[in-house]
Structures are given as structure tokens and as C-alpha cells.
């Protein structure tokens, strides 16, 4: 059996109720699974929320994670994605003194643009596959980014 640590994206539909998020994060920490990123928001016009969890583990670990998640009483459904559309957003703050044309061009290549500017800084936004967001963040290093925030991934099965 191979114990390779594969990256995996799991979506969880839960009932919106107090402490449901801590049930899920407790499960991960208590059983020694890791969370690379986690996003959560209510599903419009329902009593549910949807979490997208990026994690890593062997096939067996991922199988246990989905089963253990499913066992939690407020969990309605667990999807372990194989064929999905996955996106992540990043916001980056640059000094206005950097080459804004270059930055803008780069952002556009990654589904983004400059979304805000003030006296000293501009804020750029990109939204793309997490892997491509990684690339973007490497490329823009030379423009002295002041602050970076990533949203964590969201995913939908095709």
C-alpha cells in the first residue's frame, strides 16, 4: 500500500448550528489529520453551510476523514472531489511606486486586476486555481508585495 501524501479537496455540507465548525476542526486535530485550508459560508436560501477543506493524506487517511466527517451528526453530505472546478482568491498590497502596468498585466493573466488604490498602496486581486495562485505569488515577488492574503480554495464537482 502506498502511503503517499496526496493533496485532496473535500466539501462538507452541514446544518447551520452552533459549534458545527468546531466539531469539524476538532475531528481533524483530534485524529491527527491536517488542514491546508478551510473555507465556509452559508448556502443561499437553505439551512446549510458548505465547507471546502483542502487536506493531504494517503488514500486510507482520506477515506477515514470522509467517513469520520460523515459520522458527525450535523453533517449532511461529504464530497471527496476528483473532477472539480477549484478556485482560490488572493489579495496583494503593493506600494504605488512599483510598476503598476506590469502588475495589472500580470493580474489579468490570473483572472484578476487592481481593485483598489490609495495614496501609498494599491491592492490587486486574482482568482484562479490554487496552483496558479502559487505561481502568481512567485512572479510578483519582485514588485515588493507588502501584504498577501489567500482565501483558501472553494470547489464544485463538474
Amino acid at each position, binding site marked *: *500500500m502506498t502511503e503517499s501524501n496526496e493533496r485532496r479537496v473535500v466539501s462538507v455540507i452541514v446544518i447551520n448550528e452552533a459549534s458545527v465548525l*468546531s466539531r469539524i476542526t476538532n475531528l481533524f486535530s483530534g485524529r491527527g489529520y491536517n488542514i491546508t485550508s478551510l473555507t465556509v459560508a452559508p448556502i443561499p436560501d437553505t439551512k446549510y453551510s458548505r465547507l471546502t477543506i483542502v487536506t493531504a493524506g494517503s488514500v*486510507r487517511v482520506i477515506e*477515514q476523514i470522509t467517513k*469520520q466527517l460523515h459520522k458527525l451528526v450535523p453533517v449532511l453530505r461529504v464530497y471527496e472531489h476528483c473532477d472539480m472546478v477549484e478556485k482560490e482568491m488572493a489579495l496583494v498590497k503593493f506600494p504605488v511606486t512599483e510598476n503598476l502596468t506590469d502588475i495589472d498585466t500580470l493580474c489579468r493573466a490570473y483572472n484578476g486586476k487592481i481593485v483598489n488604490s490609495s495614496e501609498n498602496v494599491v491592492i490587486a486581486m486574482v482568482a484562479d486555481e490554487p496552483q496558479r495562485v502559487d505561481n502568481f505569488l512567485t512572479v510578483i515577488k519582485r514588485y515588493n508585495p507588502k501584504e498577501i492574503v489567500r482565501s483558501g480554495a472553494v470547489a464544485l464537482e463538474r
Partner: protein
Amino acid sequence: MQISGAQMVIEAFIAEGVTTVFGYPGGAIMNVYDEIYKQDGFEHILTRHEQAAVHAAEGYAKASGKVGVAMITSGPGFTNAVTGLADAYMDSIPLVVISGQVPMSLIGTDGFQEIDAIGISRPCTKHNYLVTDAKDLPRILKEAFYIANSGRPGPVHVDIPKDVTAQIEEFNYDIELDLETYKPHIKGNPRQIKKAMEAIAKARRPLFYLGGGIINSNAAYEVRELVQKTQIPAVETFMARGVLSYDDPMLISMLGMHGSYAANMAMSETDLVIALGARFDDRVTGKLSEFAKGADIIHVDIDPASISKLVNADYPIVGDVKSVVEDMLESVNLVDSTRYEGWRETIANFDELHPLMYHEDSERIKPQWVIERVGQLLGDDANISTDVGQHQMWAAQFYPFSRPRQWISSGGLGTMGFGFPAAMGVKVAAPEKVSINFTGDGSILMNVQELMTAVEKKIPVINIILNNNYLGMVRQWQTLFYDKRHSETDLSVQPDFVKLSEAFGGIGYRVTTKEEFDAALKDAVEKNVVAFIEVMVERHENVMPMVPAGGSLFNMMLLEKKETK
């Protein structure tokens, strides 16, 4: 009907058929205790420690199959109860545990006796609730009882702030539960079951691996029928003792770390494991990569997360073991029971080579003799609880269990202090049987205050203390694996156990010979009050055979051979 939250708790208990509540009062739960005072629908038993209240509820649940109920106050009352919750969680015991909480307005302020109870209980309960509005209370209580005793059973904790127990609302318990996110799977997939039966029919050396899930599911008699009809040998886990009767010719013994040689060899040689409600615990499997190597695995479990968690299942069947075994019986004629004759013989030879036994080679009584003797004298008439340690393993190995729910012991958490309060719960659930607690000189002191409860409520538990003046199980590991450095395990300094029991109003015996033991047990059964029978046993006896932690099942340390019996 407009009633307070506290009254709702009482009404819900009565509607659920609760007859006994084990508990301990305090500030935050006082509203409920006030209602307990006024009612006569159930009995409340005041234990002398909250941990004991939960263990007593566990014993009650295990012996009766009903949900055990415990009640405690906030803060220290709750934290004292946590060990019991964890114990019930590990062993899949259905409980509803109600705790008081500080009023809503004080939550989050570090109020007096405030602790984040549901934060603490979350990892050691099947589910838990903080009730923030008495309007939700009927539904939550109904869900709590349902969740506790359906699917894979487990403890459910309900934390109720004091103002919620005072709040007056409409009470209606006739609610249809609609838990769309919680739907235990009962019926096994018929095609998988058929395939499993075909695999059994084709196997040469199949082996039943029987687990505690059979007891949970009340399926022991169906399993007995399946075993009888197929004539396939069976091993039991520690939690499954009593599924088959000790004298069933197909029963090899317990397997695992302290399982018999034949049971462990059978598991090592089998070509098809038929796991029914067992969870491949590390105490059972030893080294995983060598466990049942070469065998296919049929795994029936109600909890999908138990299947292929540790050992990959070739025939996974999610469902209630009772329902699945009933379905298996439908096609049992596929199986030719004469086919396994050679296999049964092989196992009989294993057993002859290294039977489960001990040597009578000491001046002092051997602890195993005590277990066997109680088996001879009381047998089916006793329910057997234990504490944790060597005495527990000897009880599992040597007691002649004849029925399910006769055996009550802390397997998953291994909680010293479990035995005495659990045996009280057992006695309350099954008053017609003698309630024995086999305990150690270490363990008994961990809930010894329950003498008071047993005296007050006339719960005649007989505690048989196998006194080896050691934390024996730890001493054994030190002897075997730590070069005999007996660090902090010598219990030479001891209380006078007879006087201790008498100080509370119980009775006590100190026994050094077999004749004295017989007389003490007979007397204790007749007197029908809580008793300590302290048996001075051989100090250096080890539990054998033994698979060292992480070792392979076929690589056991065995009892030395001797000429004498």
C-alpha cells in the same frame, strides 16, 4: 402543557421509560433536582462521586441494553464525569448525561463553576448539545435518547444553563424526529451478503471474529445459530465475551494480546476472517502487517468508519449485525459444514499444545483459581464486572461466560475505578443476579467511596479484590520489558480492606486459603449486603500468554511448561 425546563427533563425521562438516574447535585442543576424531589416516576441514586455516577449508568446500560442516565452539575461536577463519558464513547455504550451550566447571561464570563462543557465533551461523546432555549428542550432530549441508542451506540451529553431549566414553555414530547443528517444504516447490502456467503462456502479455513457489536445489537442468539449451522470455529474479542457460551464446541477463546494460543494461531492461519461487530483494535491485531496475513476479510459493522480503518475489507458490509446475520442465515445452506473438519482439528491441536491454563505452584492462592472458582460456584447466576489490570484479563480468560450482557468491563479506555460503580449499575438493572466485581488492590481505591452509595441504597455488590500488593499489570510489563525495575508499582502499604468496608457499613473478609474463600463467597451471597472479599493471591503471577505490544499474534510469550498442573 406549560412547564419549566427542569420539569421537561423529568417528563422526558418518564416518557423514555427511565427508571433509574445516577447523579450528584450542585448549584447549576438545582432546578432539576428540585423537580426530582417532587416526582416518583423514577429512582435517583446519589453516588458519592460524579465519575461513579457515569460508570454506574454504563453498567446499567450494558446489563440492560437500555440507555443509562446520569446527572451532574456544572464545572467540577462535569469535569469529574468526563472519564465516564470517554469510557462510554470508547466502548459504544448508550448514555444520556445531563449537566447543569451557569445561566446564559454568565456564559463566557468565567462565571462561578463555569467551564466550556460541550467543548470538553465533544471529542468523547457521540453527540452533544448546549440548550439555549427551553423551547428546544423536548426535541433535544428526544434526539439525545434516540442518537444514544441507535446506530453505533454512544454517550450523548446535554448541557443545560440554569435559566433554561427555570424557563417556562409549552411541553410536547409527541414529536416526530426528523434527523435528515443522521440515518444509521441497518440493512446490509443483499448482494454483498450473498457474495460473503459464497466466500464462506469456498473457504478452507474460515474463522468467525466476534466483537462487541454483537452484544450492542442483541444478536448473540442469531450468531450462535450461524456458528452452529456452519460449524466454523470462532474467536471472541474481549468485548464479545458471552456471545457464545463457554461450552460451545466452536468457541476457541479470546484472541489478542492476552488471547489463547489457539485463538491467535487460528487467526494467523485462517484464509477467511468473518468479522462481526469487531473493530480490529490494536490489542487484538498485534502487528497489523502480519495480522491474518493471506486471509480475505468479511467485515460487518454498523459504522462505515470502522470498516477498512485498519485492515482492508474484501467484503465490506455496512449494517446492523443482527439484521445481516439473519440475512446470512437465509443462505446458510450454501455452506457445507463438514468441509472444515480438518481445520477444526488443526485448531484442536493448537489448543492441546498450549491450552489456556496456569500452574498451581504457589503457597498462595493463584488469582486464576479465584476466577474459576467463582465460575464453578455461581456460573450463570452472576454478572461479572471488573476493574482494570491483571485481574481483568484473568476474568476475561477464565470465567465461564454463558450469555451476552453477563460481562461488563472497560475495554477501550481501560479505566481503573470502573468496576465497582459499574457493578452497582448492573445490580440495579438485573437484581435477580449476583453482581460480582473482580478488582485489584490498586483499582478498588479509585472509586472506593461508592461503598457509601451501595450501603445507603442496599446495592449488594460483591467486590472480590485479588490482592497482589502491586499495580500488577504495570509490574508485569516492568518485569518483562523494563529489566524488573518496579518503578512505583509496589503497593505494600495498604488499608485494612475489611475495616474499610465495615467503616461504611458493608461487610469484609480477608482470605488466604481456598476453604476460606468458598466460605466468604457463600456468606457474602447470603448476607446480601455490599462486600469486600480480599483474597491474598500470588504476587508475581503474570498474565499469559502474551503478545508483546506491536508483536505478531503468532509470536506469543507462553506459560512455561511444568509437569504439575
